């Protein structure tokens, strides 16, 4: 696939919803014509899904309860 010089940082900002309307439109127009960037953006989302689905959350209810008790005793 032909490599693209469009900055991948723009795709990161786009995926994060951090672009204004004009910038967003620029990215969307580019994506319509660029398979490499569409693949890169899809890859970003795939990585997010893989890590979220396969990284178990760790909890410790006992320590959490102890911490709440400790906070309750803190001078404030």
């Amino acid at each position, binding site marked *: 696939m032909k490599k693209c010089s469009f900055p*991948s*940082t723009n*795709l*990161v*900002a786009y995926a*994060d*919803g*951090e672009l204004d309307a004009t910038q967003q439109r620029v990215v969307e127009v580019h994506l319509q014509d660029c398979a490499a960037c569409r693949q*890169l953006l899809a*890859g*970003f989302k*795939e*990585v*997010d899904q*893989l*890590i*979220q*689905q*396969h*990284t*178990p*959350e*760790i*909890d*410790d209810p006992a*320590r*959490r309860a102890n*911490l*709440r008790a*400790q*906070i*309750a005793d*803190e001078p*404030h």
Partner: protein
Amino acid sequence: MGSVNAYVVADDELIAAVRAGCTQSFGLLIDRYYSRIQTYLVRQTRDHHLAADLTQQTFLEAFRSCARLPDASSFPAWLYRIALNLTRHEWRRGRVRYVHSLEWVATEAGLGSEVPTSPDQTDECHERMLVQQVLAELNPALREVLLLSSLAGFRSKEIAYILTISDMAARQRISRAKQEFRLRYNILSRGNDDEEMFFSEYESGGVC
């Protein structure tokens, strides 16, 4: 039978209550963020005991300094920033050791002694091991960014704040981290002699 009004108090409202002297409100923030911070710290330090200590220190520091929180709506990012700074302090003291072993990867994948009883469970096992192995092999700076972006769900501006770098630097790191992860993941999941040996050792150990 009516509907339950499940009003969730926003972080900034809880912070305002804490600042007004309501300690219980901070307890709700602990409930909301404790496991996320602990998960992040375990993956940063690869040491459950150290991570538990740092989790506690994070919340204590947050409680003691919440009056200095510049913007109550940025509480999550601020909390992670405290956690990261505490981790870096321990790193400078030499207390953080990046243990990279088969057992650690299995532990981070949350795999206990249960043997999978179906092909789906076996696939799930392998997938989790792959993901955790790739995360473990990444450069720490890239892993750090992935934990904040992909796992914790922060946007690049928030990650920039947490890491005290520019927005552009944060986006560059996020892009590089996700591309690197995907590349390594694809290589591992395509399968090769090394990978077959890896899974063979793992399964014969009965961990999965």
